[in-house]
């Protein structure tokens, strides 16, 4: 499965479901080495529209993890301070890179992606209802 989809989906997925899923996968991923698991700041730049210059909009608190598991490197970062979630996603990234339980991992990520897409679609429809056509007299 492509890494962009896996990491982007799991960073926004239900954290309880991700942790529970990874718990089952741990025996297949051993030995596991946690190389990094910490919180920190990600600088968020933005491009303005007057001169097309970039500036820092602010910082975002993230949790990140870097592991070696299933014979491969795994990494994850997600917003907030949930170190366990970052660790769990990094293990799934390693599983994906190392070809461990690929079918189960893909099915899980796809199910989470579908749930998130449904949420996006529902919000999008609610937003669409607020479209306004203006006339001047």
């Amino acid at each position, binding site marked *: 499965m492509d890494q962009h989809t896996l990491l982007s989906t799991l960073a926004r997925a239900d954290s309880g479901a991700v942790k529970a899923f990874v718990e089952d996968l741990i025996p297949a991923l051993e030995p596991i080495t946690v190389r990094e698991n910490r919180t920190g700041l990600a600088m968020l730049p933005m491009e303005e529209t007057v001169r*097309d210059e970039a500036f820092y909009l602010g910082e975002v608190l993230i949790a990140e993890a870097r592991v070696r598991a299933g014979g491969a490197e795994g990494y994850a970062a997600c917003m907030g301070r949930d170190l366990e979630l970052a660790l769990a996603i990094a293990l799934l990234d390693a599983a994906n890179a190392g070809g461990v339980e690929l079918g189960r991992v893909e099915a899980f990520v796809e199910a989470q992606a579908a749930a998130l897409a449904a949420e996006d679609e529902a919000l999008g429809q609610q937003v669409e209802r607020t479209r306004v056509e203006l006339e001047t007299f």
Partner: protein
Amino acid sequence: MAYVAARGGERAIAASEELHGRLSGPLSGELVRAIERQLPYLVDRVMGEGSLYAPELAALALAQTGGDLYEAVLLLRAYRSTQPRIAYAQPVRQGELRTVRRISAAFKDIPGGQILGPSLDYSHRLLKLGVLDGQNVELGMLNVELPSEQETSSADEHSAFNIQHSTLPAVADWQRAEGLLEPLPAGEPADPAGLPDVTREPISFPAPRAHRLQSLARADTGGVLALGYASMRGYGMSHPTVNELRLGYAELTLRHPVTGVAFSAGRVRVSQAEVVDTGAGKPGESPLRLGFTATIGWNEVKTIAGAMLDLEMSAPDPHPAHREEFVLYHTEPVESSGFCIHYKLPHYVTFGSALDNLRKAAGEGRREGETLPEATPSAGEAK
């Protein structure tokens, strides 16, 4: 300047803090979650001024301070200072925002259309007193039958999918294509790790544009509004219109350190405003000028007022209260509120010294038998 060491008072200070907590009510995880869920705009304001996107912690800061905004912002800034900087995200671009609200007061037929999104702009400002009587009151105020979500998505050519996938181009891009604005200068994309940063280097004036916009993004909403309102009321040199106001979600795009693959670590609520002024250009230049401000969180007042101040600060000879140095120094929420509240701390020596001077001056012309009250500079911890 003299400082006198403080002594004693620990028990009174502990009791004071305890009383503050008692009068504010118990602090609990449930309260924090309720604040995060139910008061998103307040949480956004704290995050914007605290310059840290962390809704859970902003809600905790609000709960812990009993809703004292400046204290909450200070708590968040203090927490932020304990965290290492570990990543630089890819720059957010206006056209890539997952936009939920986007309006223009300058042009009604903007490409992509006008979307009110979540707003109370057109609501009746009436308290829903029925809530206090236990009634279940719906959030919407207008008694209008809304189309079903299915009807909306099938009937309108602009589907929800389109809204979420960048079909809302910047109004400024359209204006540039029409020749109403000067074209943007060609340049290399900026390195996200190499931008000027007010948290790492002092501002010097005239400030780099990156410093100005970062300062406005972190600025105190009330301060920005006060100075912006002064401009709106007539102290300013421009009379702009909102070119585009946009609320949305920005992806926090990071790169995998091993493979280099870009991915989203989550979404951040952001708001931005662009204002446009007419008739200020030099001969041969575009007659339109833009002002811009953005912040993390959804905060329309701050971004509109900030964009107007951006215009003012760029004017050749702005009002003294709209000069860059004045605006940026006086809208910093932690510095300004901190300086303000420091005045309530003991100043016994300072004040005693002033009294001594008064006494000396008065003594020169004093009639015999007249006295001034004695100062007591030894009364406590003071400067």
